[in-house]
């Protein structure tokens, strides 16, 4: 029985967190392989439907990260995103979708080590929580596998 390797998708903004993750690479700081990044121009662009889609496609965890408040390259994208996350998180919590599976963070272009930190701690959290089988069942994946 192989150890459970979480599948985690990260939605990051181009100007801060993506650059911060680049810095992690330039500094050769190692972190877990489970997190794969998708680039957005700004956290303001991140539609909550994409987070839902991620769980529906089998993600066990999600990281959403952008510029610190007041530092957004587009002034206010991250402020709007923050409000959206507050509402979305409340709704997910009400529905019993485990909010611990989504890690929100502010990582600036200079915070290479913080990004590695976020990745590693999120991977550990998801590993402890285990694969998101409840959602997978709802999404019909376990049925699919049983039928194959």
């Amino acid at each position, binding site marked *: 029985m192989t150890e459970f390797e979480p*599948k985690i998708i990260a939605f990051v903004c181009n100007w801060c967190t993506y650059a911060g993750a680049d810095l992690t690479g330039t500094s050769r700081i190692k*972190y877990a392989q489970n997190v794969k990044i998708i680039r957005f*121009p700004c956290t303001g662009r991140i539609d909550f439907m994409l987070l839902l889609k991620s769980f529906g496609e089998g993600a066990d965890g999600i990281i959403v990260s952008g510029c610190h408040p007041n530092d957004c390259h587009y*002034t206010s994208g991250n402020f709007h995103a923050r409000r959206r996350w507050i509402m979305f998180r409340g709704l997910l919590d009400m529905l019993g979708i485990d909010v611990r599976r989504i890690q929100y963070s502010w990582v600036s272009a200079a915070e290479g080590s913080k990004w590695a930190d976020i990745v590693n701690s999120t991977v550990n959290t998801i590993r402890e929580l285990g694969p998101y089988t409840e959602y997978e069942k709802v999404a019909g994946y376990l049925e699919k596998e049983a039928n194959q």
Partner: protein
Amino acid sequence: MSKIGVFICHCGENISATVDVARVAEAAGQIEGVAFSTDYKYMCSDPGQTMIKQAIKEKGLTGVVVGSCSPRMHEPTFRKACQEAGLNPFMCEMANLREHCSWVHDKSEATTQKAIDLVRTLVEKVKLNKPLYSIKVPVTKTALVIGGGIAGIQASLDIANAGHQVILVERDPSIGGHMSQLSETFPTLDCSQCILTPRMVEVAQHPNIKLMTYAELEKLEGSIGSFKATIRKKAKSIDEDLCNGCGTCTTKCPTKKIPSEFNTGLGMRTAIYVPFPQAVPNKPVIDKENCSYYQKGKCKVCEKVCPTGAIRFDQEDELVELEVGAVVIATGFDIMQPSGFPEYGYGKYKDVITGLQFERLASASGPTLGEIRRPSDGKIPEKIVFVACAGSRDPAKGIPYCSKICCMYTAKHAMLYQHKVHHGKSYIFYMDIRAAGKNYEEFVRRAIVEDEVNYIRGRVSKIYEENGKLIVKGVDTLSSAKPVEIEADMVVLASAAVANPGAEALAQKMHVSYDSYNFFSEAHPKLKPVETNTAGIFLAGACQAPKDIPETVSQASGAASKVIILFSKDELSRDPLIAVVNRSPAPVFSTCVGCFMCASACPYQAIGEELITNRQGKVIKKVAKVNPGLCQGCGTCVAFCRSKSIDIQGYSNEQMCAEVIALLNHE
């Protein structure tokens, strides 16, 4: 039908050492829609780029994915190569297999699989890319330089001499900055004012430079090539056209005991004042907070004695709007007040001063006319102790970085003291001596050998006063950690160089990145030291990091050259990754319902209204419309739209959804 070409780079061994690049290329070749897939040692090199161009032509590729370094590194390189081969540059994307994969993971199956996933994700995105064409923006050939120290002065002169207009904005009543406060500069011991003031006058007289002193940036809008800056000209209470700089007002002002900022608190000034005799412009301002008239309604002596009637008590702050094409930030640095180190006694004992205060004492036009005298009793000190690294290189209480200039100016201070007080004795407590510049090491040697300055390698643990003397307790680590105690008459602390107050607020106004010490961030630490991440805004001088005068002047000229390059074109090409509201044929016309939630979210007010009318002119519906000249492409509006009626090129709904699905599904 898509025909994507995938090119996986080894990046020498940077990627191939941990990722099985051949396998990645093979796996990519299996993806539906990929017509060509290969790997190569250096994709960004000439032969690598030629390979891409050839594949585009021979295979008729409709899109390109390069799996290599970060797109922040080489996206322009590969897009240009595609353009040269006849493929629209926006059909080219990059998968980050280096910074986000090979450099942060060990060699393993999971690492290679991750690389395959990342490449697949970008392939699915490129399949949905559309050809886009750059937006042309006109360039306003006027530069705004913020900060009138040596950095701002140098940048302004360079840009102005290239034939462009410059507006130089300075917060203080005069330009000159910290360099005007120095007595002599290392390593030549040139008189600072003597080399600076000709430049200051050149700025004031230059036909292409407009000088605004006692003014600050209020707001900055727009983008590269077409910024709109609002400058607040603080009320000087003087009509500058009438004032002839005679200075009578400053001699007659009855309020004389205001600590002078220019003299770092060691001397006094009046309420109506010129900061220093060589000030440019040499016209006074009234300090409203200390002026008898503004505070109590009495006096007005200056108005009575002014020969040209230039005093204007009713003058208000003025807001001026400027259209500029580029901005240079040259706001300089500040010296940390070391009162946070109680062991040094700064603020408690009058004779413990900072390096900048020593400069004022040594300065011929300073509060002591160039004589080194103790602030407490005015006597000439027989023994001075200099403490280097007073606050710098201190992760515990101070700042962890090195302030760069202190080793050199401490040596200079000791030398100046020895030249002025021949029988005096000077001691420098140091950790290391950083004298890396041209002639710097020789300068420090001179201090030790010729001027007999005593260098003690060790730190100071305590300074306290006893019988009018300052007892300095330290250690000499080069003599088997022997404790050292010196009875000094004066102590000079080489306090840390920190960011200017207001730097954070200024950075936020201009959307420029800054680090945790409030120094402005350069776009790349090695290769882009004068640019910021905000296009059109450049950096010069110590506002970016502590540095000495020759480096400041170099960086200022560097920033100026970037501005001149920008102004060498009449038009700029802007990235066309902007938002668009959908349009469709009658009777729908657009799925937009005109709720304008997008408009309320847009930070640039780039979304307006459009009335869709029928042929008879009757309004059918009111929908949103994006102004392509203002949209910066953040996509916040797209995430807001409930009906998905607005979308953004390059990060469209379809593309992001395809990326998510591709990333999470192994084929």
